[in-house]
């Protein structure tokens, strides 16, 4: 006889309310699982999409995504000349906020040596890749632009020639691919007043050092900030070349740091993505603990309400396993129902979240196992109360 089910049928309202409440908590836990996976997927998307044999960055820096790395653009020629290197291309990456379609949009720009340089979009969803040196862009649909649309960035207007979904920035922002010079121009673009003011300041500095006016005018251009900088050089190795050897040579002779794509992934996982992952783990743990505490209280209340019935059951000879089954089954029914509710809810709502939510069956199974263990734990208090109930309680005094 299934006592737990009979009892829950009598407390249908409270059972459903508990399933709803705890189910919402499980929804958040599952969403955080998905957010954790999404955070990693987004954080690594660009690295995996580019997937060169080596990422060359400023020496001692873990760039270009985990840490800032700045290199003169011409370094790529030195890298290209290194033994074992088949192809070396400049790569630039930065985040901007601009008005697009009348709305302020935050997105990241990738500049690569179009059309065939490493680091460009690999899988075009619609349209084509960048084929001209200037004024073309490939964008993520999340940016809200359509194929053929004209987008003003700084002083120029760019045509959306392709759409790609393969990459998203580590911050979850859409990516815009531009040719390298366009990306540098957008990055270093300044308004005229700012340019004039910088020139005047430079001339005053030179004058204060005793440089004459005509000499200062001649020195102005060479002394102004160089805009031909990049963040990394992406390398494709020659067939049969040893990655470690090339990386060692780059480090030793060019005073740069070289990482494989796996190293880049590792840098991100241990660096920029780690704190977010820890944060999410902490939240998930807290929410699971809260769920278990709520379940424990509900199961305890259910048990306390039945304590006289439990005494009667014991008096008429019910073995402990009948009592244990009653309490434990209720706890597990609540846990499993709440989890199922949470799972159905997240499966039907995860696309509405602003950040990428990646739902994996393995995560669901793991969370379910923890939830069930929590459900068993939640029944401990009720079980203890039930098992220590004296059958004499069923009899009146006299």
């Amino acid at each position, binding site marked *: 006889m299934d006592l737990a089910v009979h009892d829950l049928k009598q407390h249908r309202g409270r059972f459903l309310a508990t399933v709803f409440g705890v189910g919402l908590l499980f929804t958040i836990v599952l969403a955080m699982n998905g957010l954790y996976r999404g955070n990693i997927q987004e954080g690594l998307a660009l690295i995996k999409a580019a997937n060169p044999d080596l990422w060359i960055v400023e020496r001692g820096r873990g760039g270009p995504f985990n840490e800032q790395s700045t290199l003169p653009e011409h370094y790529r020629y030195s890298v290209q000349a290194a033994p074992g290197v088949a192809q070396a291309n400049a790569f630039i990456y930065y985040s901007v906020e601009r008005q697009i379609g009348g709305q302020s949009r935050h997105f990241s720009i990738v500049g690569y040596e179009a059309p065939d340089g490493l680091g460009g979009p690999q899988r075009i969803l619609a349209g084509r890749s960048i084929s001209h040196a200037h004024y073309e862009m490939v964008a993520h649909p999340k940016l809200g632009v359509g194929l053929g649309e004209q987008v003003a960035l700084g002083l120029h207007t760019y045509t959306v020639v392709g759409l790609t979904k393969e990459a998203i920035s580590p911050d979850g922002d859409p990516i815009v691919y531009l040719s390298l010079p366009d990306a540098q121009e957008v990055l270093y673009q300044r308004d005229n007043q700012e340019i004039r003011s910088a020139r005047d300041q430079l001339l005053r500095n030179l004058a204060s050092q005793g440089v004459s006016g005509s000499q200062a005018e001649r020195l102005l251009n060479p002394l102004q900030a160089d805009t031909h900088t990049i963040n990394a050089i992406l390398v494709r190795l020659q067939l049969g070349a040893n990655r470690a050897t090339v990386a060692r040579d780059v480090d030793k002779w060019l005073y740069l740091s070289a990482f494989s794509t796996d190293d880049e992934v590792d840098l991100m996982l241990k660096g920029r993505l780690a704190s977010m992952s820890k944060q999410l783990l902490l939240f998930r743990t807290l929410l699971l603990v809260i769920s278990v505490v709520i379940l424990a209280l509900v199961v305890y209340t259910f048990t306390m309400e039945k304590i006289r019935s439990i005494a009667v059951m014991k008096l*008429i000879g019910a073995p402990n396993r009948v009592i244990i089954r009653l309490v434990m089954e209720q706890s597990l029914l609540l846990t499993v129902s709440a989890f199922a509710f949470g799972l159905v809810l997240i499966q039907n709502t995860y696309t509405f979240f602003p950040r990428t939510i990646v739902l994996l069956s393995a995560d669901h199974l793991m969370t379910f196992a923890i939830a069930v263990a929590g459900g068993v734990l939640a029944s401990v208090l009720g079980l203890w109360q039930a098992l220590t109930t004296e059958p004499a309680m069923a009899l009146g005094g006299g």
Partner: protein
Amino acid sequence: MEILQIQGLAKTFGTGHLEVRALADIDLTVSTNELVALLGPSGSGKTTLLLCLSLILEPTAGTIVFDGQPIYQQGWTGVDMRRVRREKIGFVFQSHNLIPFLTAKQNVLFPLSLIGQERAAAERRAMELLDYMEIADRADFLPAVLSGGEQQRVAIARALANNAKLILADEPTAALDTQRGMRVMALLKEIARENQSAVIVVTHDMRMIEGFDHVYHMKDGRLDPSRA
């Protein structure tokens, strides 16, 4: 046939100057088909004796032989006591004590499920008992919607479900009006006569004991021989 033999039963609580003697020198024999009443005021030890007979309170001294088996012998555990209770003893309580989330029929089925009776046979037996108690038409109702008398009849049906050799009834009429109380007592008498069971009823209501085979008065933890 003697179903219960009690000799020199005593129960004390506490020690030293805090010692309370709840039962002393109880000798009692109950046979099959006998209807026995235990009377006495509050605190006289009726419930303590009932607890000892229910195998949930171990006496300090004396012996209880139930159905030829010495109880509380060395090596007996709570599991053994529960087995005897579910197989051989039926309980009727003061406040019915039906399991509130089970229907009348399910309440009767419950002890049958504990002794592992096959489902269809158990269902038949439960309906027979409810029919015997003239409450079969209320079989699918929850206790909350049954009257006090109906609940007590379901409780008696439950007590009979396992073909108990001994039925212990603790103030079974306390929560009923006189008419319904008389009806319940009549049922208990009928059970004692027809079911090869012995019935021990603890009560303080003198009006309810007419027709009992033995009536024992309890006072200060002892059976009063002058009034047996």
